[in-house]
């Protein structure tokens, strides 16, 4: 399905809305196919009108099929997946792309839901198939307060190969039927035109969470796999898991730092896994105050940049000491992000608490960098 240009442009535009279009009415079982198709067409036409892209009908209609399964709430997501390789593929394409440029309300309320829904999906698939690696759903009650509302609605999105090695960025806004009873045309939040479609990719996310109970680090280190503890060097257990590939520092106070994830949901998921490990060791671990502390993204503008010019004209924001560090350090004020800009055209953005800050920062810097393009 996906021809070459699609993964680049389509996902960013359409993905954010993809989940929203079949809004499963909360009570009724199955929206008719016709209804869904109608919604989809309406929605796509609006998108097409806005963006001048031909609405990609074929690939997107296929996802309609699994939705009824989700709505039924008893789905085996696997069959859903398997029966729709297209879906998977499409979604797989979306997975590497940011999906969070939604109107704020949607993002806010959905931010946690996709995670939960992902969990739910995983839990379900776990119970129904051996594919998922997660332990039983019982630990779901780890105390995530947000868990409550969206269970029934949450099955919509996160089918995309959660068992794939590529973790889909589960930023897909939950098709929360309560809030999206009708398809609201959403203006694209990401004006791609300026950036020629260059999207910064997240490289590292640092988050913290409070497990809210005192921990015996020695016990954890002894019983957990992949845990190191050297009290003389550092007063925390260092634990690693392979999926998502992350590292956690667990302190005896119950606080935990999780690093290395490539998306917010992965970070949360990883933190939950660590919490589960601790829980399984017998501690009454909870999952409080999960907070993303830092996000790092990087991208390539694909042209060489004349840093001497940049440092001269943006003196108050930049410092460039090539004998110290080969990149120019640019401290953007709004949003408050630090960018490392290299001669080769690579840009690293750090200091963000939210994904949108990274995108905004890049959009701000791109025209400036173009001005200093080294021919």
């Amino acid at each position: 399905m996906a021809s070459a240009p699609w993964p680049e442009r389509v996902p960013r535009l359409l993905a954010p809305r993809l989940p929203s279009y079949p809004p499963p009415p909360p009570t009724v079982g199955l929206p008719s196919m016709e209804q869904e198709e109608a919604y989809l067409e309406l929605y796509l036409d609006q998108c097409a009108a806005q963006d001048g892209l031909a609405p990609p009908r074929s690939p997107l209609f296929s996802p309609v099929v699994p939705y009824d399964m989700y709505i039924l709430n008893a789905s085996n997501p696997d069959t859903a997946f398997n029966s729709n390789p297209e879906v998977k593929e499409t979604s797989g394409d979306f997975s590497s792309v940011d999906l969070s440029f939604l109107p704020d309300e949607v993002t806010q309320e959905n931010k946690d839901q996709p995670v939960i829904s992902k969990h739910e999906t995983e839990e379900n698939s776990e119970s129904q198939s051996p594919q998922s690696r997660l332990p039983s759903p019982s630990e779901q009650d780890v105390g995530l307060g947000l868990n409550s509302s969206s269970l029934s609605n949450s099955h919509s999105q996160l089918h995309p190969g959660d068992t794939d090695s590529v973790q889909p960025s589960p930023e897909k806004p939950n098709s929360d039927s309560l809030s999206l009873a009708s398809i609201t045309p959403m203006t694209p939040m990401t004006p791609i035109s300026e950036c020629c479609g260059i999207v910064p990719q997240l490289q590292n996310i640092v988050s913290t969470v409070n497990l809210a109970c005192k921990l015996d680090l020695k016990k954890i280190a002894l019983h957990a796999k992949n845990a190191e503890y050297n009290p003389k060097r550092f007063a925390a257990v260092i634990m690693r898991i392979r999926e998502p590939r992350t590292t956690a520092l667990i302190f005896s106070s119950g606080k935990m730092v999780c690093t290395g994830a490539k998306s917010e949901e992965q970070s949360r998921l990883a933190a939950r896994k660590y919490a589960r490990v601790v829980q399984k060791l017998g501690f009454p671990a909870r999952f409080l105050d999960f907070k993303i502390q830092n996000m790092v993204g990087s991208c390539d503008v694909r042209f060489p940049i004349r840093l001497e010019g940049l440092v001269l004209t943006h003196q108050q924001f930049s410092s460039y000491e090539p004998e110290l560090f080969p990149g120019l350090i640019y401290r953007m004020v709004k949003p408050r992000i630090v960018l490392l800009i290299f001669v080769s055209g690579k840009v690293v953005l750090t200091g963000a608490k939210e994904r949108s800050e990274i995108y905004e920062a890049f959009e701000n810097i791109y025209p400036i960098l173009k001005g200093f393009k080294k021919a």
Partner: protein
Amino acid sequence: MNNTAASPMSTATSSSGRSTGKSISFATELQSMMYSLGDARRPLHETAVLVEDVVHTQLINLLQQAAEVSQLRGARVITPEDLLFLMRKDKKKLRRLLKYMFIRDYKSKIVKGIDEDDLLEDKLSGSNNANKRQKIAQDFLNSIDQTGELLAMFEDDEIDEVKQERMERAERQTRIMDSAQYAEFCESRQLSFSKKASKFRDWLDCSSMEIKPNVVAMEILAYLAYETVAQLVDLALLVRQDMVTKAGDPFSHAISATFIQYHNSAESTAACGVEAHSDAIQPCHIREAIRRYSHRIGPLSPFT
């Protein structure tokens, strides 16, 4: 990046002609550095040798004075505080040094946040590494500051004119380059004494000293060496500019007279002799710069 494609006049670099007889030479690195600071594409080897000599002398002086200060304190190592103490009289240079230290701290902080392994390592090393240089500087200046001038420098946001000029020069230089040349230029700019720390240490003959500098002090020394080279290049360019007679300049007659006089000495003729790189800085420019501005060259210039 070692400039292997040195000027055609490059003679054997290693030992001969060095008054101190040391076998370590930074001449090739210096050639790169001078290029990045505003010299021609292929700086002259002789110039580099001369610059090396000057910088070496300056640094040895500095080290000796720092060792004396350390001894006064009864310490066993030369610390950054000693160096800061020696530089306390020259506010501009001190401010530039402080800014450099802060930028170094800031850069480690940022780079640490990017790579998770770095983050872990830093946590593991346990010590409070963040802003350590800034803390050192602040604490020290706090302790010696009588009039409040030194501490005022931390809030000082004045533009550093010399740095500004260097930035502008670099900008002019790079504007006309194509991307291949620019890539080379950038590599030259990244060269510094701190990258060749062990060679730098040997060059200064630290091992034979009784009191040795610690890590941060070595960083500062490397920076001061680089600053000295930069200063020499700045002044030499100024001298060279002066030597060019300008039509309509009423004093050109006087200037060229000096120039000719300078040229008459046999040594200078050889040094400034006809060669392919006429736009490179000549040793005579450097010598003239030293003669004129000796009170300004070197990290401790107010002292000399």
